[in-house]
């Protein structure tokens, strides 16, 4: 699976030599890093006084959490339309949905149901994955659930382990990102030390 733009197509034939290798390394770092997060308005605005207040930290922290939630709620109400209209390509989604996933050739017996819950007040999209038919992985291996945007793995939504193909597994996941129309999810297999990027896709939407 392609995990980003092709370096040679991106730059063409220039530059050559050591400079090209330096740029290739930056390219790989960009792929590893993934997209920077969208900041909520109150973090975008700048530091606040509580960050520089050392005393009464617990009380301050609790108040700040409450106030931050209030500020986010206010910001969502007043800025929701603005943000929605300025996210670039694609539109946001709001409906709850359930996505059926099926195994690829790497896990032909695997079946799963991914239920995406309503967005919470902080901008999270909690999800529940029910999966069967995935084999247990060797040590340091795990399954990862990736949000797919424009056909490519875009961001991690969590990970899980299974005890074997006959044991059903239910896991709670989260997409802490602004979801858009057309977004979907895949399950990949990651083996530490052997896998680069998102890993091998083992499950994809049944209707893909």
């Amino acid at each position, binding site marked *: 699976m392609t995990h980003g733009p092709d370096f040679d197509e991106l730059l063409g034939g220039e530059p050559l030599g050591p400079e090209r290798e330096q740029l290739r390394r930056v390219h790989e770092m960009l792929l590893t*890093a993934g997209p*920077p997060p969208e900041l909520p308005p109150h973090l975008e605005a*700048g530091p*606040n006084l509580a*960050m520089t207040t050392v005393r009464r930290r617990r009380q301050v922290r609790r108040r700040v959490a409450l106030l931050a939630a209030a500020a986010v709620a206010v910001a969502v109400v007043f800025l929701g339309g603005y943000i929605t209209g300025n996210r670039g390509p694609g539109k946001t989604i709001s409906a709850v949905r359930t996505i059926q996933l099926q195994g690829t050739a790497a896990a032909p017996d695997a079946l799963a149901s991914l239920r995406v819950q309503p967005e*919470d007040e902080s901008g999270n999209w909690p999800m529940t994955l029910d999966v069967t038919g995935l084999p247990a992985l060797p040590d340091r291996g795990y399954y990862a659930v990736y949000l797919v945007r424009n056909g490519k793995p875009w961001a991690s939504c969590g990970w899980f382990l299974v005890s074997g193909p006959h044991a059903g597994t239910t896991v709670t996941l989260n997409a*802490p990102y602004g979801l858009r129309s057309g977004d979907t999810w895949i399950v990949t297999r990651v083996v530490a*030390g052997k896998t680069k990027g998102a890993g091998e896709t083992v499950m994809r939407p049944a209707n893909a």
Partner: protein
Amino acid sequence: MELALAMPHLRAVPTDGATAPPPETPDAELLALVAERDRAAFDLLYHRYVRSVFGLALRRLGDRGRAEDAVQEAFAAIWRSAASYKPERGNAAGWLYTVARNAIVDRFRTAGAPVIAEVPDLAADEPGPAERAEASFVAWRIHRALEELPRREREVVELAYWSGMSQSEVAEYLHLPLGTVKTRTRSALARLSGLLEGELG
């Protein structure tokens, strides 16, 4: 505005009329100023790193609300601990990463069972975990470096790498000639290479 006036803890950090340090001030010098309680320096450092801190917190905590709390605590820790930074022991970006990461881990431990978006960070001398720790640090540095790019270069990088668009589609979307998009992309990568010089081994 009324909300901020009624709730003083969310007011912006006052700069006490102090002269703001120049935007190109190195991180280490900003930390030295923060150690002397220079709020303008803290404001500049915050804007450089807030996206990196929030990104790291999201990766670890997998929850926007808790990640926002962790950002709060991470910058509070930076404010409290700036005097402990010793330039001879390592670069400022690494120190900031460690302080922020510790604050996020504290949040992870104290907030009960979390939803995990990323495999937990693990000992750095083991192959798999080390790679994951490295990936977190790479994301930290890349997101920090992106803040330094001119807007027009940052735009083409973000569209090329994370929108799924081809170069031709980026050109069409931005109403630019394809050659201009390629030139900006190359320029952006070269600029990032310079910014990340210490990371490229």
